[in-house]
């Protein structure tokens, strides 16, 4: 067994445009996906995530660089000779075949004996809880059921890697949440490497072992969900995953993991965690998540604190969301968890109130400015 299930080595994909030019869909990507991993490609539409997946499947061939599956350079090997299978966004079930025939298709292509096909299709349909539906046509099934058929049809080939292209995109919210957990459980059960394409950051965080965040054909950061959320390595990743506040300024000094940044508009110096490439004199932007900021009537410590005015308050049950405005019209969004059940109106902030904002140094992060 090779070291990686999937590997991209400086892979590039250019598409011709109707005007005769070229557009870069995948821009020099390096990527290693481990065996048995649930790996997500996450990014906004047009970021190259689907093209990357299609290069693994063999529907697209890299313009330059290599795509390796199981240690073998794929080159121009067509999809029907690759040991990967795809669950399509539109499911792409064969409308003219029954569910049984759909799931059996892959095994028939391998010319497996009839008894084996019948047995294995039965097992797979059991696994995705569709045993009673074998004789139906895809159109007679609900969206969620069609999704399971697509999954069974791909899994029956026992692929080295299962490629999933936004497979839950067409389902409603509730079903989607259910399927997320089911997919994850299924992956644990079959132990196959899953490469999952999505633009839904919450979905990626919920399911993945590791995530690659992509934008404009490039991979910006690869890491576990916690790493991606807590230690984004650039402004785009911080902004795309979850919510965050940005404070722009200049690095005053750096010592180890900590840096002091002068936030120009607020006129304060903030000490915070610093990523790679943060040095004194550089323009920088601090990212701090709304749930990590605390607000108080009096300053909680001597540093990393400044005054701001409450602009807006939204009580949403679990949290109270507060919008603050500091000097220089700097706006901050803060989520205060409602840990008590008090009904006392005085225990809530009200708009127009002047309060103190406290940024704990270990919970805010400096990213290099653009």
């Amino acid at each position, binding site marked *: 067994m090779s070291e990686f299930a999937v590997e991209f080595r400086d892979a590039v994909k250019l598409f011709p445009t*109707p005007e005769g030019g070229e557009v870069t869909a995948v821009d020099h990507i390096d990527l290693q996906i481990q065996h048995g991993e649930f790996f997500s490609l996450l990014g906004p539409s047009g970021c190259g995530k689907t093209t990357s997946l299609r290069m693994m*499947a*063999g*529907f697209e061939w890299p313009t330059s660089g290599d795509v390796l599956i199981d240690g073998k350079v794929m080159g121009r090997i*067509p*999809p*029907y000779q690759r040991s990967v*299978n*795809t669950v*399509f966004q*539109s499911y*792409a*079930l*064969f*409308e*003219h075949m029954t569910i049984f025939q759909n799931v059996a*298709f*892959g095994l028939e*292509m*391998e010319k497996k004996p009839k008894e084996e096909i019948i047995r294995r299709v039965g097992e797979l349909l059991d696994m995705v809880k569709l045993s009673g539906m074998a004789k139906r046509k895809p159109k007679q099934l609900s969206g969620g059921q069609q999704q399971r058929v697509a999954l069974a*049809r*791909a899994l029956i*080939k026992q692929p080295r890697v299962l490629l999933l292209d936004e497979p839950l995109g067409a389902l409603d919210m509730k079903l989607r949440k259910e399927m997320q957990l089911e997919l994850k459980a299924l992956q644990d059960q079959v132990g196959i490497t899953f490469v999952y394409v999505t633009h839904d950051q919450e979905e990626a965080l919920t399911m993945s072992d590791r995530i690659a965040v992509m934008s404009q054909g490039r991979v910006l950061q690869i890491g576990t969900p916690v790493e991606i959320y807590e230690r984004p390595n650039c402004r785009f990743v911080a902004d795309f995953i979850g919510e965050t506040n940005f404070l722009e300024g200049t690095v005053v000094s750096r010592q180890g993991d900590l840096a002091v940044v002068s936030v120009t508009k607020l006129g304060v110096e903030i000490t915070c965690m610093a990523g790679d490439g943060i040095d004194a004199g550089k323009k920088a932007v601090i990212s701090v998540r709304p749930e990590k900021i605390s607000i108080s009537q009096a300053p909680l410590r001597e540093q990393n604190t400044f005054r701001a005015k409450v602009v807006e308050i939204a009580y949403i049950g679990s949290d109270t969301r507060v919008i603050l405005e500091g000097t220089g019209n700097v706006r901050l969004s803060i989520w205060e968890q409602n840990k008590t059940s008090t009904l006392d109106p005085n225990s809530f902030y009200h708009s127009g109130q002047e309060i103190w904002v406290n940024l704990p140094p270990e919970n805010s992060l400096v990213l290099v400015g653009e």
Partner: protein
Amino acid sequence: MEKQRHKYSLIKVLRENQAAQGLFLMSPTNIYLLIFIVFPLLLVAVLSFLARGSYGEVAYRFNLANYVRLFDTLYAKILAYSLGVGFGTTFISLLIGYPMAYYIARAPARNRSLLLFLILLPFWTNFIIRIYAWIMILRAEGFLNSFLQWTGIIQQPLNILYTPTAVLIGMVYEFLPFMVLPLYTSLEKIKDAQLEAAADLGAPPWKAFLRVTLPLSVPGMIAGTILVFIPAMGMFVVPDLMGGAKTILIGNLIRNQFLTARDWPFGAAASMILMLLTMAFTLYYTRKAGFGEELLV
């Protein structure tokens, strides 16, 4: 009095009776069908049981002689020959039309309308004129023979014109668009993702074609077959002009009975038989392929 009249007004009936509403809304179609299809067909059906008078007029004597006469060897042969030409035309149209439709459906979207336009372009010229153009091409000193002799492929001119081959060529030429268009509609609906899924599951292109493209284009094949077969069975211009006097199809027979022999009842009987044959074939064919009326929509 005023109230009494209102009770029977059309508006009132329509307001209360749902069935009447439907009938009323459909009436333009129903009236059209009644005048232009049902009534003429009844006329032909009745006519087919009457007899020819001595001077070519219709004699109102009920009899079955017209139908009996159709089983005469002479006419039975014409019937069988017509069926053969009908099937042949349909089959060759399908053979040529399928790759054409497939090519158009797989062409870049911006080229498709141009290609479809080219398919329909011949309809801008009168059919008879186009048939004469084919005669020019096929005759002994025509373009085809001149070209083949010039290239040295043949020494003596081929005698194609005024043979059954010429009839087939003319028929296929005329009806090809009716095969290509429904096939295109079917093929164009097949999504790329379906073929990608087949490839993904291990099907090389030719297998993906057999297992996915071909079955999904069956509705188009059936619609095209019906659209070609029915008019091909009744065609008489092509055999007249390109088949010489040698090739008589049932279409020619009917035309001759009405216009030359002035035996309208016999022509009517032949028409009825032609209609019944095509209907039987069409129904059998669609049912056999597992499609019902929804196909024709």
